[in-house]
């Protein structure tokens, strides 16, 4: 195996040896790229976390735990957050209820900039949302190919140690093994046929549970809607600090019934049509003009045909009968 570079850009290259499988009896080497975590918006745990890219698609936290254990020993690894999960986490505050919230209400809330979040309220909210969430249909997600993850270690020292261990592995060519012995048996749901079967099973959740989840959602949704309506109502008459009054939906009178509006429109169109019909070909110039138009149309079509033919000629071969 040719030895690759031990670093690439500001990443350390962590080769992981993948044991052969009966279906693919080859020793493959997967390359993870590791560096200190330095996100654009710093967080408190940055100093003791590592940023990984090109994680294998079948990665789980257990896999990474095993990997880091084989590098620096047990007890250093705290948790891992994968790309897709982190995104989820980011959008958590938005979904699914907020996404479902009447759009204008959400906008209003934002515009109003009202801080209504308190600690206990937030916890309550999370609990409610969890109840409203639909159960997942997969026992284990696949990661994006070439995706990233952030690994949180015990302390800053561990970060140093891991990077050092990676360098050492590169030098000695003793690569850690993916899903090796240190991966605890039975902790990771298996892939393959069991995984697919489990999916089919999970696709049919218990009816009561499903009903409960939907009910929780509806309750939450109704409450939010009401809240939004209340805010809207309040804002309707209340100028903001710049003295502007926000225009909100739901005003004085309810809109006329849809049917009536449609009927009115139909009548109007009919009237227009009738007028038009009465006046076509009323004057001679109209007739003349129409004829002229028709002729122009014919000419245009003629021209189009010619153009199309020319285009076909460019492609060639179209005009020779098949042998």
């Amino acid at each position, binding site marked *: 195996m040719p030895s690759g570079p031990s670093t*690439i850009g500001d990443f350390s290259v962590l080769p992981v040896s993948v044991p052969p499988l009966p279906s693919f009896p080859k020793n493959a080497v*997967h390359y993870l790229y590791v560096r200190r975590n330095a996100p654009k918006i710093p967080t408190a745990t940055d100093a003791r976390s590592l940023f990984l890219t090109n994680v294998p698609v079948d990665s789980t936290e257990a896999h990474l735990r095993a990997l880091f254990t084989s590098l620096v020993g047990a007890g250093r690894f705290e948790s891992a957050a994968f790309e897709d999960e982190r995104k989820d986490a980011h959008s958590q505050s938005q979904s699914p209820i907020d996404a479902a919230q009447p759009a204008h209400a959400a906008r209003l809330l934002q515009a109003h900039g009202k801080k209504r979040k308190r600690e206990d309220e937030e916890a309550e909210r999370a609990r409610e949302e969890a109840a409203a969430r639909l*159960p997942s249909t997969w026992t284990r997600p696949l990661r994006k190919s070439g995706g990233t993850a952030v690994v949180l270690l015990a302390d800053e020292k561990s970060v140093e140690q891991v990077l050092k261990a990676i360098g050492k592995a590169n030098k000695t060519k003793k690569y850690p093994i993916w899903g090796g012995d240190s991966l605890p048996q039975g902790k990771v749901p298996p892939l393959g046929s069991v995984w697919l079967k489990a999916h*089919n099973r999970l696709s049919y959740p218990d009816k009561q549970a499903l009903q409960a989840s939907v009910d929780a959602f509806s309750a939450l949704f109704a409450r939010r809607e009401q809240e939004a309506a209340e805010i809207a109502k309040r804002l309707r008459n209340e100028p903001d600090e710049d003295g502007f009054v926000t225009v909100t939906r739901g005003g004085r009178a309810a809109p006329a019934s849809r049917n009536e509006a449609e009927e009115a429109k139909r009548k109007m169109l009919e009237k227009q049509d009738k007028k038009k019909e009465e006046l076509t070909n009323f004057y001679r110039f109209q007739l003349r003009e129409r004829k002229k138009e028709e002729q122009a149309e014919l000419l245009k079509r003629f021209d189009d045909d*010619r153009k199309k033919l020319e285009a076909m000629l460019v492609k060639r071969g179209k005009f020779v*009968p098949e042998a």
Partner: protein
Amino acid sequence: MDSAPAKRRKLDHGQDGVEAVLESAASTGISRSRAFVLEAEELLDSVRLDYDTALPGADELLHRIKGAVEGINAHDPLPVAEAASKLEKKHKIKVPFPNPKPQENSNYKVAFAKPAQFNVVGSYVSKTLVKTQKSHAVDMVIVLPEEILQEKDYLDLRYFYKRAYYLAVVASALRKDLAGDAQLSYEYLSGNHLCPVLAIQPTGSKDKDSEKSENKGALDYRIRIIPCAPDGFFPKAKLHLGATLVRKSCDGEPTASSEPTPFYNSTVIAESCFLPYLKVLRQAEKKCAAFRNACILGRIWLQQRGFGGDIAQGGFGHFEWAVLLALLLQGGESKALSPSLSATQLFKALIQFLSVTNFAEKPCVFGPGKSDLEAHLDSGPILYDATRQLNIAFKMGPWSAALLHQHAKWTRRVLADSAADQFSPTFILKTDVPSHSFDLVARLNHNGVGKEAGSDFRGQTWQLGSQVYRILKRAFVDEEMGERARLIHIQTPECTSWALTDAPKTRAKSTLEIGILFDPVNMSRTVDRGPSAGPSAEEKEECEDFRKFWGDKAELRRFERDTIRETLIWTSTTPFDLCEEIMRYILGLHLRIGQLHDEITVYGNGLPALLSLKPADTTLFNVAKKAFGTFERDIRDLEELPLRVRQIAPICPELRHASVKPPVFGSTKSGPRPLECIVSFEASGKWPESLVAIQRTKIAFLLMIGSLLERSKPGEIKTHVGLEDAKFETENLAFLDVVYESGPIPSGSIAISRKLSLNYISTSLSPTIRLVKHWFNAHKLSYHFTDEFIELIVLNIFLSPYPWDAPSSASTGFARTLLFLAHWDWRSEPLIVDTGGDMPAADRTAIATRLEAWRKIDPNMNHTVLFVATAQEPSGIAWTTSAGQAQPSKVVAARMTSLAKSASRLIREAGVELDCRRLFVPALKDYDVVIHLNSKAVKSTLKTYANIEPEDELESAGRPKFKNLDERTGLEPLPLVRYPTDLFLEHLCATYAGPLVFFRGGAEDNTIGAIWNPQMQRRAFKVNLPTSYKPAATAGQKRAKGDDDDEEQELVEVNREAILSEIARIGADLVDKIEMKGA
């Protein structure tokens, strides 16, 4: 002869509509189909020959030949046998006497004298040769001098003996004169055994072939020397169709029979008509400027349909076309075509004429004359030129006239359909491939059947063919019982040329090809009801006749309303088998052939057999449909639903008769497979405004419907609400599976979705769709194509079947679908399937414009590739894109086209003998990676239970099973949301959309092919690579050498092995083996 009745008849003829049709053809042709006219002009330009470069030296050669022939010494009459043997001894040249050969002791005398006239005739002088002809010939007639002929020579082949001798003398002289410059051989003029001619192939032109760079346009051509009789020498009145002119049998004894010899007679007349017709054509050319071009168009049209002047090619070629057109231009009284028409108008007019005139059924006469022609229709179609007293169609069989008529009708239909592409089906497509045209093709090998040469001079095979035709026509085209066949065609073998020193080759065994085009409805009839057996004499006679024809098969049966009829009962079930059964029976009965099994071989059933398409499948589809009906009723019967059901629409191929395999219910091997349908409810203002909330509300709704259904039919219905594999909250989240105790399960989901409704337009539509889907499966394409797309493609073949009629069997439908796919230029052409048949032209233009716009926005075709629009779905991309991505992608679409091209080529080249399995062999070596799935593991995934952990199940699989101990006994398996392997592949595709393109057939396909995306090259390292990359190897090596280049180090390349090992891990027990190309 009394001319009055002739005149009246002619008027009658006009009333038939020919006249009106011709007029309308002439007047409507302008401006309606501009494109067709332009394209035809373009076609004329591209096929026209430059005679100087194409036929170099033809004129000189003709002059040389003339000189050489003129230089031959005349000699006095010699007895024919003596003269022939002298020629053979001296020049080693055989005289090509027609059969029966002159008797050794006969006292006919032959002589030689300078020809009365030389003349170059045919397409060379009229300049109507085209580049794509199979062979190019320059025809030179030499008129036999009157002094060596006698008036009575028209009897008993005497003229033909003299002609043959004359030809042999000319041949001997020319061979001497042209030695080395040209190759001489005999051949038959138009395959007519009475008229051998001399073919002179300049060797020079062949040499030039080898050094093409010098003379590119040169064609292989030959000069044919055609001896003929002087005009008006033989008394034509005595040569009418009913005359018996050959009164001696083979052994020279006069025979008593006075059977007329129409073919012989017409040949004699034709022999003296070369120059008169030359004059006719010349006049037409002079009179009508577009005549020549109309002839070229006609030549191409005929050629693409396999027609030619040869007897084997139907006996209707360019010459007949030109003469017919000239006669129509001359006209009699009123039905003349205007000479000011353009070439395409003339062409259309003649097509119209051919489509309304069936001269196999009714004689068509030009000019005043004959009234008694009807009687001669038995001998063949009649197209009578009264001025020259020749039946122009004398070389045609009744079948070729019928085929010509049919083709003209089809072409007329294309020309009338302004929406379709009129040009390609008319002139470009080759439509004489039997597998495209006929539903059943049979080969008849015969030796010595019908040994007697008889009164016909077209050969034994031809005669047998005409007998077979007559019998099959009676058997299959019976109006009383309902016509089983639309067309019966007989193909006789073609004649080849032979050397001067040999006798013409006679094949010991020759093959007759029979092609039959079904009427699918009538052909599937298993009981034929003949005439009713009544007491009247007429009825008795009819029954007698029926019994005589059908033999022992005819039996009396009683039908409803107490009618007793002669009846035929057939045992087969499919149209194809029925046709074969009847054909074998009736030919065996009347001709005593087919008794030995190898005499008749039948082709055309390979494809349906491959898929074991059975008529019983329809029943299974109907079961599914019925189940759906029950479901629909049950839903509509639910009274407690808060909203009214507006529509329940099936959306799965099983309910459209369009799945490869008919739906199976109650299988023990897998969980029940749902049939998908959509339930739409009336609109209501009560739905929440947010899409997410709507989706949740739908779940609640489904739960409610489920419990209501269960309550309405307790014990019989079981429902499951399932969650979709949705990524966003706004997508459809759930569906409801309804399991009926008796089997099938409709699975409903509430959604607004596009749908395709296949009207059941033809019995062969469903099997064709299934065959085509099978083909997509076999070539691992179907993963990339929606069912609806494939169905629309096939539907298109049925809706615009030009240049044929809608396919009447699955085999022809399949072959034509492949032909369409091979020709479809999806880069620039939208496919417009007009299901209603009434799409306005403006809509079509709008669709075409939309495609153009797409191509402009997205020239690389990332988002739209195939463009298929219908009236309901004018966007054109509903079935060919998913989530903004082209489905299939350009790569896959191109692969489809190339596969269809090679399949079409194979179908054409291998002909009817093609082993159909070859069309369905996947080319596994084309793939970079082949993933073999473990069929056992796949099978195990088909069944899941609500209360058993899949993992436990796996463990228990190893235990010896005792049914009564197995906890699964009595448990109903859960329905199968999706085929698990489909899901597996879907995950692979989603995960490796960048580096790999996967190919897989239908649900049962256990081999997945994949190719590496060539655009995924090595690239600079960055965060968030599109797939698994490894540091580039070369970079490492360079570094080792000390060549420290920073940029080089940053490069990474696709880590193929790691990716494959990931796939192996995802698949785990599902994957048997992953093969990598070159590893």
